């Protein structure tokens, strides 16, 4: 089995964030935190990315954009929601245009809370995401379908909302 865990390429999408989390995402790449030592690269291209980092809540305007970015990524792929807005909608939750967290439009695998999320937490979230990533790859190589996994995830999020 091929170990894919050493090379997670990250694509960062800023929903309707206040830019606090975005600054922290960029801080991960600076000499202080140096995310590249784990092979993490910030790529701008969904077609080559493995992990989608979403910051900020999802509103009616950016929902189709997030959906399209997710669809353009090749399997296996992982979504990490960074910051409380991307997790639940945060302080903007009740705004008329906000749908909620990133899980309203795409299946989210890892939630990184915080306002703003600290760089250590973000890197930890990505590293957790890598575990999911490896699991998906193993499933894919065995010929199992990944869509079931996603549907299950979607059901789970729906259930948690009901509660």
């Amino acid at each position, binding site marked *: 089995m091929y170990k894919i865990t050493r090379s997670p390429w990250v694509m960062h999408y800023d929903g309707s964030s206040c830019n606090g989390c975005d600054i922290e995402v960029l801080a991960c790449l600076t*000499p202080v935190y140096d995310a*590249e030592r784990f*092979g993490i690269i910030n790529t701008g*291209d969904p*077609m080559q990315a493995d992990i989608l980092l979403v910051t900020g809540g999802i509103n009616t305007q950016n929902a189709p954009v997030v959906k399209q970015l997710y669809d353009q990524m*090749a399997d*296996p792929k992982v979504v990490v929601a960074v910051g409380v807005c991307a997790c639940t909608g945060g302080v903007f939750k009740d705004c008329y245009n906000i749908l909620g967290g990133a899980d309203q439009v795409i299946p989210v695998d890892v939630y990184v809370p915080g306002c703003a999320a600290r760089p250590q937490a973000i890197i930890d979230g990505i590293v957790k995401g890598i575990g999911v990533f490896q699991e998906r790859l193993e499933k894919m190589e065995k010929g199992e379908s990944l869509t079931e996994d996603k549907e299950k995830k979607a059901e789970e999020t729906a259930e948690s909302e009901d509660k």
Partner: protein
Amino acid sequence: MISGKLISAICYVLFAPLIGGLIDGIGRKISARMQRRVGPPLLQPFYDLGKLLHKDPIHVAPSQNFFMMSYLFFIVMTGGMMFLGMDILMCMFVLSTAVMFLYFAAVVTGSHYSSIGASRELLQMVAYEPCVLLTCIAFYMVRGSFETAEIIKGDISPIVYLPGVFVAFIFILTIKMRKSPFDISTSHHPNQEIVKGITSEIGSRNFGIYTLAEWYETVFLLGMVALFIINSNPWSILAAVVVIALVYFLEILIDNTSARVKSDVMIKVSWAVTLVAAGFNILVLIYFLG
């Protein structure tokens, strides 16, 4: 009977990805240290390639697969021809053909970003092609042959006659290796001005093929640098390795200390350097060699 040339060409096809990947890894490590970062592991480029090849293959247009395979094939052919000791001018023509396939792989997608990247790739060709041709001509003037097998046979290294051409070639090497300030067609990792330029619409697996082709090309280009140094003395190969290491370090230094320029500046500067350094050098050669 298998000749030495054939063995060197087979070695190129088999080992150039290993050497190219390792050079890439060393480059990333040095780059990180220049920025006071720890940097990725030395073998990071191989991890990246392995992952890219294991992902689900996606392509925007089916013809992209053909174009990318052709790109890889012609790059390998370019280097193979050089290590076979064949005509260096021919190698450069095959290299241009390879770049055309990369251009097509980008424009068939219809994406604006990859189209802009593709047209910039053509501008890059316009910028470096005169110097490449002058380099080939200069080798011919010194050695009386375009064939690499003949070029490496003289008693004195070509760089003694061609210091200006060497400077111009190192200059355009920055364009060819896609290093800042001339990485205008791919727009490298942190600065995503046109997303990823010519490689924007290239899916994971095809991007792996692209990476592999880049490694072959790096080894070919550094082989061109070696042609300036190698002579009939076997120790000159060691000297060539040292010069290659210095040249590569210089490229990384330039990459880390300069911001990307506009395409018209790139063409003006590279043509100026080509004309002044290589052109003047060749005029002097004509005067002395007749």
